[in-house]
């Protein structure tokens, strides 16, 4: 199948352009930094609580305090992972088609008995595979470190990783769509603006939940999420990072403290999940339709 030939070629390209090597080195550095930081901060807190139990109110409270610290660190670490993966997905998508058109290298390729659908599918499959591996390895490493150091158990590991992968695939698909219709630089700008907007939409949605709550802002946040559901999906993932005991902890339900700004204490709404699943499929379909009509 020619799509697989293109996918194999795309992975070779990533290797030849030292993308894999650079990605691996930076990832190892990020994970190492997280491991050291998590270990030191956790130990610090442990020691402080042991020396001065009055900070918490007794052993139970101390354990809860440690859990809260771990949770915040894990969420922030995974936030870093999803941010890096999101940018990587955008860059790879932006660079997937239009630079090959601009350089003229695509002409000889598409003059072969290769359909445009097969070409786009091959590009997408290869990049999606690389990004999925990246997200799985990175988020898995972080969760493993938290587990070893602090015995941390997230609510649902599969959903955390699955939704983080979905988020990256959404960004890859939308930037690949852009890459079939826009010049590289214009697409890069559009994608960064969209990405920033989605992030802002998430912040708006978060602020809307601060009591007494604001329906208009919540709707605005949802509207932005529909445009690009990446940040909404991350928030959905972050919900499953939280251990069940954390969610029922009084500090998060008494209304004074609604959570961490970059994460969510609410699961992803089923309708938004459906939209997020349909979104990359729709982007790819549009990309194929647009690319078929495009003159090279």
């Amino acid at each position: 199948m020619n799509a697989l030939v293109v996918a194999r070629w795309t992975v070779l390209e990533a290797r030849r352009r030292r993308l894999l090597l650079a990605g691996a080195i930076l990832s190892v550095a990020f994970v190492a930094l997280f491991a050291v930081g998590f270990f030191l901060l956790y130990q610090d807190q442990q020691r402080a609580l042991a020396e001065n139990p009055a900070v918490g109110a007794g052993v139970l409270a101390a354990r809860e305090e440690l859990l809260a610290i771990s949770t915040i660190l894990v969420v922030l670490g995974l936030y870093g992972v999803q941010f890096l993966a999101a940018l990587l997905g955008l860059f790879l998508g932006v660079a997937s088609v239009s630079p090959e058109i601009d350089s003229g290298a695509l002409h000889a390729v598409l003059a072969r008995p290769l359909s445009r659908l097969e070409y786009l599918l091959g590009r997408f499959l290869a990049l999606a595979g690389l990004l999925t591996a990246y997200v799985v390895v990175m988020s898995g490493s972080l969760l493993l470190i938290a587990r070893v150091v602090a015995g941390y158990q997230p609510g649902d590991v599969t959903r955390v990783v699955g939704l983080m992968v979905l988020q990256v695939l959404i960004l890859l698909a939308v930037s690949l769509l852009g890459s079939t219709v826009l010049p590289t630089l214009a697409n890069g700008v559009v994608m960064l603006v969209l990405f920033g907007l989605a992030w802002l939409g998430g912040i708006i949605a978060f602020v809307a939940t601060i009591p007494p709550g604001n329906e208009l802002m919540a709707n605005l946040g949802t509207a932005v999420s529909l445009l690009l559901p990446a940040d909404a999906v991350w928030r959905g993932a972050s919900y499953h990072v939280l251990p069940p005991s954390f969610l029922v902890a009084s500090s998060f339900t008494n209304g004074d403290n609604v959570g961490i700004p970059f994460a969510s204490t609410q699961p992803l709404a089923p309708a938004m999940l459906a939209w997020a699943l349909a979104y990359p499929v729709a982007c790819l379909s549009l990309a194929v339709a647009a690319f078929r009509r495009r003159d090279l």
Partner: protein
Amino acid sequence: MSRTASPEQAGAVAGTGSGVPAIATSGLHKAYGSRVALHDLTLAVQPGEVFGFLGPNGAGKTTAMKILLGLVRPTGGEALVFGRPPAEPAARRPVGYLPEHFRFQEWATGAELLDFHGRLAGLGAPERAARIPELLERVGLAGRGGERVRRYSKGMTQRLGLALAILHRPELVLLDEPTSALDPMGRREVRELVRELAAAGVTVFLNSHLLTEVEAVCDRVAIVTQGRVVASGPLDDLAGAVAQLRLLLDRVDREVLALVGRHGQVAKVEGTAVTLAVETLDVAPDLARLLVEAGYRLYGLVPVQRSLEDVFVDLVGEVREG
């Protein structure tokens, strides 16, 4: 998506014998917005022909070729390659293509590029293993297949491009300005390759603005300018289409111009030399007799061989002025 078709099969698909033209277009039209790149192109290239598509830069040659490869969608008319529309991927299986400026993925090595294209063309692993070193050798890149294309010189990239174009033993090879950036040695090598292909019965469609190139290798030519074919036919006919006679006389007066004007059109008068455009060179003996009978002394009567360049410049010039 199928990889079942082997190159042997592709070889057997040749339109020869079946009477299907290698290339057939009718009323082909392409407009980019308000700019028309190609007007009403109708032509047929038979299997085994070496066809030259000749025109100045920007005449629409590349657009026509891209339509034949399914890279560009025509806004009107129809194009068929061995009887099938080139937008169908399978129709492109027997086609080899050398793009203008031979642009390829520069991060790859020559051998990797050949392997990738071999897979896309449906060559199996054993065939690729045998064919790729053989091709590298043939185009003079033996031992250089492991180097990145980025490090190749222009000449080497062109050789690689030719290897890619003939990789799967195509029945039809489309060459877009194959020599425009090359030195004389490179040009000669391309000419030799085209002759070899022609000898093997492969149809060649050559885009060029270089007349000598086309004159040297092509059987038939179409001259295109501003998106229109202004002349086409076998090379000899085209160059000889407008014959000229050059007359050297003792004197040139109104009477003699009137006399020769009955047999052709006076193109030029220089001193006592008259250049006459005639429909056929057969008028020469009669003209000589008439001139002598009328009392003129005839020092010379020479048919002027018009080169393709003269024809080209005349035709392209006319369109530009018109």
